[in-house]
């Protein structure tokens, strides 16, 4: 029974004998994922800062250029001072002043929003595209990390099984083994899964594998 277990374990090992995956590959991939996230955060911060600067430029222009221009021109065109002194009946100076202040404030803030709106639309577009791109890259990297972890899990299972059979290091030997021997062992595994009632056929294969296993042990 023990010798059969060895053969079965050998067949498992043979399925994945063509590669070795150190645990550090998983760690490296996870590290790359964390660093991508760090770059992501910095990139988003840079874009937000860039567009905030554009916002500031617009606000500065509106506050320092448009507002005085609009107030001055509108006051003169509306004859505000005259209307405060001689308001049209039945209004008073407060009515005229209130009307002017409300209108000019609404105009200045409306103009500010008109200038900011396309910049905010561009900012949202860039941020959305960046978030989508980083999410896609992170998702892809996570899948790769998971796959590497699965390879390591397979390897650990092989090592545990081989160790239990007293064949530590056999996997490394199998990496260097011939493709022919691996193919024979793989075939045995497939046959063994359907072995019930087919012992005679399998016995012949076992004999072949015994020869292959002996070769691995050398």
């Amino acid at each position: 029974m023990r010798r059969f277990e060895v053969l079965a374990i050998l067949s498992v090992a043979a399925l994945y004998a063509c590669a070795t995956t150190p645990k550090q590959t998983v760690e490296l991939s996870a590290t790359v994922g964390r660093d991508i996230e760090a770059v992501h955060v910095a990139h988003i911060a840079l874009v937000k800062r860039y567009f905030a600067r554009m916002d500031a430029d617009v606000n500065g222009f509106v506050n320092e250029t448009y507002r005085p221009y609009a107030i001055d021109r509108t006051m003169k065109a509306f004859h505000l001072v005259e209307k405060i002194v001689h308001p049209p009946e039945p209004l008073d100076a407060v009515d005229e002043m209130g009307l002017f202040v409300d209108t000019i404030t609404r105009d200045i803030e409306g103009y500010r929003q008109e200038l900011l709106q396309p910049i905010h639309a561009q900012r949202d577009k860039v941020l959305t595209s960046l978030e989508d791109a980083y999410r896609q890259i992170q998702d892809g990297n996570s899948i790769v990390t998971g796959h590497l972890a699965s390879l390591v899990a397979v390897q650990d299972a092989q090592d545990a099984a081989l160790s239990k059979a007293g064949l530590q290091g056999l996997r490394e030997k199998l990496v260097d083994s011939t493709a022919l021997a691996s193919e024979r062992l793989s075939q045995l595994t497939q046959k063994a899964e359907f072995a019930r009632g087919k012992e005679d056929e399998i016995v012949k294969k076992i004999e072949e594998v015994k020869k292959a296993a002996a070769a691995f042990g050398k």
Partner: protein
Amino acid sequence: MDKKTREEVMKEQQAELDAIVKETRAAFAGAYADQLAQLQGLSDSELSALVPDVTAHAVYSQLMEVVKRASANNLGVAELKQRIQALGSSALAIAKRIGLA
């Protein structure tokens, strides 16, 4: 002739102000055209440069699906110790026939 009500005069004053504001906007756009052009945000080419041209999401999805299936298969293989034990009854019969057990 009846005197205008307060609301009527307020409405007239508001209309006068609105017209002035509209003219002021137009005059300002002409006087500060250069500065306004600089505040228009990014050009199309500048915007394109900021938007990463990554691989299409559909391609990523297809690739990730394949790799996820492969990972699931690998994790299945990692549990093959149990499968080997499940093969035990047949294996035992075979082993007895060839004198291994």
